């Protein structure tokens, strides 16, 4: 016997299929079945409020923290590439930076680059929201421009010539072309100017704080662009930026440890560099400031004679910064150093020397860097070495001790090449390296090839215009 499919049964079966199709097409049913709520996510519309604007601004300042002391940043890696830090890490990325042989796709350098750009985007998003929802919070609005400017300043200081500046504020990203170092410094100057314009002449503490920070930031960018006198003018003397002023990044147990302590003294992945390297301290590193051997009271260093994280390198640690020590992003000390450099560049050696010596013997604030409190006699006055070359060397050495691991040394070494006529071989560490045969030739960080996804760069194989200082 065959099982015929009777008409009525066929009809019922066909009806079932139709019913299922109907159910499927009924959006209310399927929407209900597929509805998902994820409590982890915060929709963009949640930022459209006064509180939301503040939260995004806080997030932007968190991003700024990431590129200074909240995360491994060019403040540390720049120190490796320059002469502040030596590698005692197992990470090849760190080694490459210290060797001055950074590959384009160095993931750490690429990560730091992203974090710098994220400061810009976060600040821009916050600016838009604050303008709409918190227009009277002028100091905070200005601080967003400061954060953006500082990221641009650090980009220009540490990365190669040819830095794309894009706008990722909205869903549609507007990609930019690579810009020269000078153009990026100009962007920083413009951002700092915006900050200054917003706070104007306001005298409330928050506005004054941001204005002073913006002045120092702008002046540093001006130095980068060879505008020495203008930089000094921007500072405006101790009235514009008192020597005791500091705009600081802070740490907490709930947020982040101070990364310089975390990676240096705590994890021992970075060792304070010296002009004599190697576990037997018999490898001469030419041009390097002897940050350990100098025994400078501004930078207390201990040669632990025990191995670092790599298990092979004896590390030298500093107690300059503790776990939660606030660190200056910009400060009155920076302002004075800028003025000193401007004076030196302007041929006024006496003023230059006076400023430096005032810092060495000045009021309490200046004699405290990190955890270090200097006695009044700790730093004897400097004497004029007599020649411009020697003065330049002395100035940058002095600055190196004052600003250790605060993201300025690499930019300063590049300026010594760019603005003071020195060759990289006479500025950057040279000679045998304790982990490889010899130092390489890098003078800045490359832009990671991820940037080739920038729509303006399709078909190209590298982003940097050049890798010169």
């Amino acid at each position: 016997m065959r099982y015929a499919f009777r008409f009525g049964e066929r009809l019922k079966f066909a009806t079932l299929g139709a019913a299922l199709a109907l159910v499927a097409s009924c959006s209310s049913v399927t929407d209900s079945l597929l509805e998902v709520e994820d409590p982890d996510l915060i929709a963009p519309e949640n930022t459209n409020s006064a509180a939301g604007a503040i939260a995004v601004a806080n997030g932007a300042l968190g991003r700024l923290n990431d590129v200074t002391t909240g995360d491994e940043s060019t403040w540390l890696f720049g120190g490796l590439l320059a002469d502040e830090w030596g590698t005692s890490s197992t990470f090849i990325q760190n080694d490459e930076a210290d060797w001055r042989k950074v590959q384009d796709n160095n993931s750490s350098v690429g990560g730091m680059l992203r974090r710098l750009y994220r400061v810009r985007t976060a600040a821009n998003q916050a600016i838009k929201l604050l303008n709409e929802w918190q227009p009277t919070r002028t100091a905070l609005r200005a601080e967003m421009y400061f954060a953006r400017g500082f990221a641009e300043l650090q980009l220009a200081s540490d990365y190669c010539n040819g830095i794309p500046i894009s706008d990722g504020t909205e869903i549609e990203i507007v990609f930019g072309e690579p810009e020269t170092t000078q153009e990026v410094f100009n962007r920083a100057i413009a951002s700092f100017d915006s900050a200054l314009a917003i706070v104007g002449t306001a005298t409330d503490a928050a506005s004054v704080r941001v204005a002073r920070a913006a002045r120092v930031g702008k002046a540093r960018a001006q130095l980068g662009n060879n505008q020495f006198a203008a930089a000094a003018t921007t500072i405006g003397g101790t009235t514009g930026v008192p020597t005791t002023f500091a705009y600081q990044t802070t740490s907490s147990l709930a947020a982040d440890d101070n990364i310089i302590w975390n990676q240096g003294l705590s994890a021992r992945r970075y060792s304070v560099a010296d002009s004599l390297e190697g576990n037997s301290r018999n490898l001469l590193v030419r041009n390097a400031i002897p940050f350990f051997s100098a025994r400078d009271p501004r930078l207390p260093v201990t040669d632990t004679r025990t191995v670092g994280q790599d298990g092979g390198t004896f590390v030298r640690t500093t107690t300059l910064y503790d776990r939660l020590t606030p660190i200056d992003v910009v400060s009155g000390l920076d302002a004075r150093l800028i003025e000193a450099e401007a004076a030196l560049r302007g041929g006024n050696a006496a003023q230059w020397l006076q400023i430096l010596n005032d810092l060495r013997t000045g009021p309490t604030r200046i004699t405290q860097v990190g955890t270090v409190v200097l006695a009044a006699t700790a730093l004897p006055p400097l004497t004029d070495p007599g020649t411009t070359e020697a003065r330049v060397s002395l100035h940058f050495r002095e600055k190196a001790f004052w600003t250790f691991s605060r993201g300025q040394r690499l930019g300063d070494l590049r300026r010594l090449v760019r603005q003071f006529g020195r060759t990289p071989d006479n500025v950057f560490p040279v000679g045998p390296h304790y982990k490889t045969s010899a130092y390489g030739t890098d003078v800045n960080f490359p832009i990671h090839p991820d940037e080739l996804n920038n729509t303006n760069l399709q078909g190209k194989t590298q982003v940097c215009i050049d890798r010169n200082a």
Partner: protein
Amino acid sequence: MHTRTLALARWAAAAAVFLGASVAYAQAGSIAVRVVDAGTSNPIDQAQVSIVGTNLGGLTNSDGRVLLRNIGPGTHQLRVLRVGYTEQKKPVTVTAGQQATAEFSLGAVAVSLAPVVTTATGETRRVEVGNTVAQIDVAKTVEVTQIKNVDDLLTARTTSLAVTQGNQTGSGSRMRIRGQSSLSLSNQPIFIIDGVRMTSNADNTNLPTGGATPSRVGDINPDEIENIEVIKGPSAAALYGTAAANGVVLITTKRGRAGQARWTAYAESGLLRDRNTYMTAYTLFGKQTSTGQPAPINFCNLQRVGVGQCTIDSVAALNIFEEDSLTPVDDGSRSQYGLQLSGGTEAIRYFLSGEREQETGVMKLPKFEEARMQAQEIPIREWTDRPNALGKNTVRMNLNSTVNPQLDLALSSGFINLTQRFSLESNATAGLGSQVFGGPGCSICAPERLTGSAAPLNTPLRGYRAWTPGYTWQEKNEQQVNRFILSGNANWRPRSWLQNRLTIGNDFAARSDSRFLFNGEGPPITNIYRNGFKSNWRQNLRNTTVDLGSTATYNPLAWLNLKTTVGAQYVNEETALGQAIGTELPPGAQTPNGAVTRTASEATTRVKTFGLFVEEAAAINDRLFLTAALRTDQNSAFGTDFQRVYYPKASLSWLISQENFFPTVGWLSELRIRTAYGASGVQPNSNDALRFFGTSIQSLQNADVGGLQIDALGNPDLRPERSTEIEGGFEAKLFNSRLSFDLTYYNKRTKDALISAIVAPSAGVAANVRRNLGAVRNEGWEILSSAQVLDRRYAALDVSLSYSTNENELISLGGTPPQIGTNTRVVEGYPLFGFWENKILGWEDKNGDGLLTYFADPARNEVFVDSVDSFIGYTQPRHLATLTTGFEFLNRRLRLQSLFDYRGGHRWYNNTERIRCTRPNCGGRMDPNASFEDQAMVIAALEHPARTNAGYFQKGDYVRFRELSLQYSFSNDLAAKLLRARSANIVMSGRNLKLWTAYRGTDPESDFQATVDNDVPSEFQTLGPPTYFILRLNVVF
């Protein structure tokens, strides 16, 4: 949520009521069927008896009988299928109200595959399916060889399935079927157990082990499994929908059989031994040429000797693993005890099982550390002595009920309770790997090397890098799981031509991951590490499946049978994580409660899929089988601008040798040709389509404040990856079915491949955004051949050989630039994740000093490296082969079975050697007797400006003696006499017995990333796979 559940229930109920309206019982008869072995006349149980052209049928009991009730009057074709026997059909006439009888005598065949396979629309005869389906007879496999988990069951059992296991006890594995299709999502197949989607993703933990991690697949007890089927690709998996493109593994657990209670007891015990050969550490002692003074340790190396910076005094060598007091490995142990009960009546059958499994891995506190800790009166806790261990209890109860001839009900329930702990290893800073592989070539060096400078840490390193295992293993990394997998299945046949099925099930796992270190213990990684910590992650994982289908069968013409299936499926996957972390604990504290820093957070993922499908199958003359189907899915992870996806399927299977026109060939028993086409997908991750902010906490002017930061760009157009596959081939049975040969070609193309498209950093947003941009091709051949070479009463020999190939190519990146990683690249025209580097072109010892040295001067340089990066090799094997032989003698009571496993055509990253050379302690860096190949590898990586790792991407080809087992089956008399048992056997087995390879590292299956589902193999400071030696006793009462 409640509303949605109700909506689903209402919908299901409506469908059931609709179908129920058609129920009516005509006056019917029944058929009593008996099936026996033609050779011995012994009854055959578990034979599948069915009425052709209907959904009616049943399984024979242990007496070989089954009664088919409610059969309409008339003449019916009865078909009997049983693995190991020829298929048989015969007509039976049923009279209303009467019982007809039918007796089948089945002839045994030497080589046979299971005649029935599981498909998305239910069980189907293998010959009707146009695609290849691999089957593993788990119940038999577990009995004859050493199987500790599902990964073992799947390793080297079928073509095109590459399984790479983690090497710690309890760790999971990477599984790839027919290559890799996805650039940025998992390429792991999905698992379905008793009809229910199973949580199966790899790396199922929050423990930061730096290497081996567990998979939830590993939870499943192989002794509870009846069989496993592997659906290899979209041509077969279309109806499994938006998740199945990487293949589907179907697990069916054991069922009770009608008959008297059958007790099965088993016990196994044995050991694990690390028989790997690890690399020796070297240290070159010499004088610094410039000073004439002894150079500090690690300063001198072959390059520095070559350029004249050093002269060699001596070379020290140490292999920690070969030093009895220093080695961190020792024999581990394994034991397993289980008891199973099955039986029942025609109306209700049961299967009950309980098992306890324990395994202790090979890691063991070295003797010198034991002595040190005892001397320092430091407690040696269990996890410090044995940091890697597993304890697992499993319980299962499966019930099957034939409520009436129209209705079958089944309940499957399994409970798993396990505790396992892992050692921090390969890529964990605190782990064992960097310590045991990173130290110098001397156990006692001058000056003495110590863990730390001050007590109590100033303890000798004895050849370890920065601290010794006692410090590492004071930290405990433990996972506990309580898991319940429940499914209920109803098969309702209101008409002989209509079958409705409903499966509802849930896989729920409560997982607790715990990481703990007492205050004052552990390695001195940072200033606060030894202050202790406790991290506790508690996660619930839930997979809910509702699967509803209805199949109508009808014969519009005598030679034509049609089968129409419609169905709906709903899958809801959800994870919810809560974590509490405390660092810097008070002395003695074991909770985060008193920690200096405490953080708490939670995370949730939810993905829901709703699919509908329809399938039409036609059988023409019961020889030509055509199938066409379509499934459509909606998924919560799709972008808001994308609604639904369609997956079509079509297949043809033709028993051409049964056609009249086919010439009679004496040696050809059966020939079937088949081809199939189908599509299926891979869903995006739950939040890939969304643009959202995340929270942050930051200290601003010394006050902690919350903030928001953009986390993801989102993509409203996001849709699933869609893979289409065509496969074709034939199956032949030769020489009276003593030899089978199966050949398959497949070509799988994936379009809309989800790419984690890199967002240019300058955008200042997320690093990646998921986009459907890629296209990938996988193509290959599969050959499977089995032969019963000898088949006598006193002896037998069977051989099985499988071989498969895979060619993988990225066709398109959708206009985005190549994805350039540190060692791998994703480039159009090349395989996914291929190794790319500047090739080492050669070397020449120009100055004849016996060393290779890099000189900037080309005239003196001795190692030559290509100036541009180029493709070096596949990261996944392109060729897989297995050879299984079974030799039975002593009247076939003794069976010797072996399995050899080959993989080749790929490279393996000897990342251990790379990092050893940077420590530096590798031979190529420090041993003047090292081969030029090893020296060139190091020079190219560390001295040449190209800095290429090419030398570390080494040929990964190998042949492994994977399994050997010797099984002795007691005669029934002996079993009864000795054990009062019905039957018994004893099995001695070994796993991972021998390796032949060109790879220069420890083992070409040693991959620290395999268990985290990474597609790039990398041996990185990783222990090799252990060898197992196990003795097992199986007794049936």
